[in-house]
């Protein structure tokens, strides 16, 4: 069964069609990449899945269940984790608190218990702390910065903390919005390794938006190409890569040989 099914979703803002009858199927346990030029509607699709935008038409199914009517927090509670394109960490908190916040939907502590820090509050806080240390910090190699305020961290580490926060939720589906944008080569390689590990060790299904073709071609199982709010191609990475329509849409030119070379070049560079 597919983990996520976006079924004929249309979304428009004051006459501009951000998504036009888009259908995307994300198979369980795989990495699905969403590519396309800027403004193609990739992040809009993410927002429609997260519940931040309400599509005018179409449905979103998560593990076979129609979640179109659910609000953001309810969708998160079902196990849809996410990172953001323009790092959305909570600047007033430490790394540890940011990551703990990711575990919010897995905990139940009520106000009364929280005020006295007794019973459930004490139990849950200790428990998620241990889990985060064991599962997330060790895995992403950020245990040394747990008490640092996030605002002071370098960009690459901030991206990693964001991934940590998403993982603390123990998601079943992880939406990654440009996980390696703006990173140097070494950081990109680290991040690619983490993503593959998340898929293999944690068994999390991943849907990711990414501009770095090398990374997309290397790690994804399935690729969807979006242009002007429509899916123009989909399939295995190598099929999509060879699709002339994709090359034209993505790079907006018809000099196919140079472009093929550039696509290959990028993938070698990464």
């Amino acid at each position: 069964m597919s983990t996520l099914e976006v079924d004929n979703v249309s979304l428009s803002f004051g006459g501009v069609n951000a998504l036009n009858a888009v259908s995307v199927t994300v198979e369980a346990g795989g990495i699905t990449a969403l590519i396309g030029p800027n403004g193609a509607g990739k992040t809009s699709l993410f927002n429609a899945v997260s519940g931040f935008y309400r599509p005018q038409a179409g449905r979103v199914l998560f593990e076979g269940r129609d979640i179109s009517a659910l609000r953001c927090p309810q969708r998160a509670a079902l196990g849809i984790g996410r990172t953001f394109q323009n790092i959305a960490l909570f600047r007033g908190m430490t790394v540890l608190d940011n990551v703990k916040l990711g575990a919010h939907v897995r905990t139940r502590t009520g106000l009364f218990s929280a005020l006295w820090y007794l019973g459930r509050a004490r139990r849950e806080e200790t428990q998620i702390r241990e889990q985060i240390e064991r599962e997330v910090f060790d895995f992403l190699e950020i245990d040394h910065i747990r008490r640092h305020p996030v605002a002071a961290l370098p960009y690459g580490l901030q991206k990693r903390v964001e991934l940590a926060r998403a993982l603390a939720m123990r998601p079943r589906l992880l939406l990654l919005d440009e996980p390696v944008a703006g990173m140097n080569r070494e950081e990109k390689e680290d991040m690619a390794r983490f993503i593959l590990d998340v898929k293999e060790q944690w068994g999390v299904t991943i849907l990711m938006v990414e501009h770095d073709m090398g990374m997309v071609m290397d790690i994804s199982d399935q690729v969807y190409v979006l242009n002007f709010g429509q899916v123009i191609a989909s399939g295995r990475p190598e099929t999509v890569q060879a699709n002339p329509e994709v090359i034209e849409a993505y790079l907006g030119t018809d000099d196919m040989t140079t472009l093929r070379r550039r696509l290959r070049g990028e993938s070698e560079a990464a």
Partner: protein
Amino acid sequence: MDWLFLFEVSLAGLGRGGLYALTGVAFVLIYKATRVINLAIGEMLMVGAYLFIGFGAGMALPLWLAVILALLGGALLGFVLERTAIRPLLGENPISVFMVTIGLSSVLVGLVEIIWTANPRSLPDLLPRDPIFIGDAFVAPKTFWSFVIAAGVIAVFLLLFRFWRGGVALRATASDQGAAYAMGINVPAVYSLAWALAGLLAAGAGILLGAISGASSSMGVFGLTVLVVVIVGGLDSVLGALLAGVLIGWVESVAGVYLGGEYEQLFTFSILLVVLLVRPWGLFGTREIERL
């Protein structure tokens, strides 16, 4: 029901509404150009009234000169506040800037009380006193003339806004700051201009309000009603400020006369709460689209 009385009350309300509209325009001017919610607008208005007292009664200057000096003083105040307290917070969290304006309003109230004491004052007679009748209805002459003057000032202001170079720069900055800057508009100067003009308008409203009901250090509360006006109208809409100003002035007058003075503010603030719950961006304001 006494229709003539209702008509008279309504006219008085419109008169007051004119002042709300005038101050509201000053508020919207600052908001549009600098995106600052200026809670000190009522206190800027109060300072205008007291400057007029200072020049007109204290220094016994001719009244026309006192008016001009008070208006210039208001403009200077706006300019100085922006440069010293608002400019350094450019790009900061809007909530901080808002709280700075709360602090400024407190400072202005205190200064006025130190200089002129907290006792209410009356202003030198400025407006004609011959009774005015519209049909059979009597209008207090002060109310009538202040409405006429407010309407005239607003009209001049709207023309300036549309045709004068500075007005165009203001509008350009309001609609897209980055683009305005790229097109060579001196955005910092526009900020100063907006605050100075708003200070001038507020001072004018203060003189008129003081002429009607005297000046006191709690006059700034008028600014809270103006806040209601601009929110009902839509923070970034001049038209909204004008219509909502007149509307709220009318509602207040009618409520005040028929239910008792203490109900005036109850009505205004209840209207505010309803608008915030139903249509937070106001009648004519732009609805902001949230982005992730």
